């Protein structure tokens, strides 16, 4: 075994390009590379919600796309749908809805109904998804993940380093608390002064 193993580092720092929940000044940042069609990401979704609840204002959560398109035929569609909703200011409600309706991905009617409920321009989303309007951004997410040591989905980064533990509440919270401590209460990057 190699000695002094350090997990890979997040090569694209969290910044304004990202979809995030929580303050940019939060003590620690959790980044997830995820795929809306991946069952392990689906299983991690409520865990992340619990983590956020437990950490409260100490945590900033960032989601980046990592659709495994060769295994998941609807993953790209789902990522495009989330990004199209983001363009209208509703990334997180759509992100949540996608994970909560994972088995219905690709069923346009189900998602169109939700988009209407969220008061989004449904036709614009349909057009943008068909045109893969956000493909470049999704590719940038994927490549940033590849270059940061993402090795499947979900992959988490805590305080800028890959988290190799289980996707379980206690374990993630413990790692987040450690990271918050080791950076003197200011994990992640401050993107505001």
């Amino acid at each position, binding site marked *: *075994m*190699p000695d002094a*193993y350090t997990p*890979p580092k997040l*090569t694209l720092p969290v910044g304004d390009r990202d979809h995030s929940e929580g303050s940019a000044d939060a003590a620690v940042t959790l980044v997830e590379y995820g*795929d809306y069609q*991946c*069952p*392990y*990401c689906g299983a991690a979704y409520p865990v992340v919600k619990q983590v956020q609840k437990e950490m409260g204002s100490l945590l900033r959560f960032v989601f980046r796309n990592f659709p*495994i*398109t*060769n*295994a998941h035929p609807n993953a790209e569609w789902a990522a495009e749908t989330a990004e199209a909703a983001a363009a209208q200011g509703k990334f997180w409600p759509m992100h949540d809805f996608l994970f909560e309706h994972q088995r219905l991905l690709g069923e346009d009617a189900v998602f169109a109904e939700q988009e209407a409920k969220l008061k989004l321009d449904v036709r614009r989303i349909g057009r943008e998804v068909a045109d893969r309007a956000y493909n470049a951004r999704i590719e940038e997410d*994927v*490549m940033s993940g*590849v*270059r*940061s*040591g*993402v*090795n*499947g*989905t979900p992959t988490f980064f805590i305080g800028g380093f890959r988290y*190799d533990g289980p996707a379980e509440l206690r374990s993630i919270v413990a790692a987040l608390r450690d990271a918050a401590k080791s950076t003197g209460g200011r994990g992640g990057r401050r993107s505001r002064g």
Partner: protein
Amino acid sequence: MILKAGVKAPHFTLKTTPDQSVSLQDFMGRPVVLAFYPADWSPVCSDQMGLYAQVMNEFKKFDAEVLGVSVDGIWSHLAFSKDRKLNFPLLADFEPKGAVSKAYGVYEESTGESARALFVIDRKGVIRWSFLSPDGVNPGADGILSALEKLG
């Protein structure tokens, strides 16, 4: 001990399908990524091999050939490859079991499987980068891409 950079890559010929074999010499003149892994059918979404299939376009930019190696037999490899839609060959280090893994210093006697280990071999057949992954950690593709970049 895992073979290190600067060492000539040991030659091998392994089966990849019932009637096809692959030799390291087949790829002389091109970089080769040799990815040893413990077993087909690991229970995660996009395991290591699936990830490499996903980023194949990046490897292709370096004209690199990716070869997966485990001690599984060809029939397991064929089914696994089809299931995960892999787009590169899987080699069966099956008979004599683990011989190539041993030659590269990455055979785990305790489990009877290959370790998770990566080699980037240059156009002349010399190992230019190697990496032995800690237990249970899927190494991803970033180290491979960095090593390919350095080949120039």
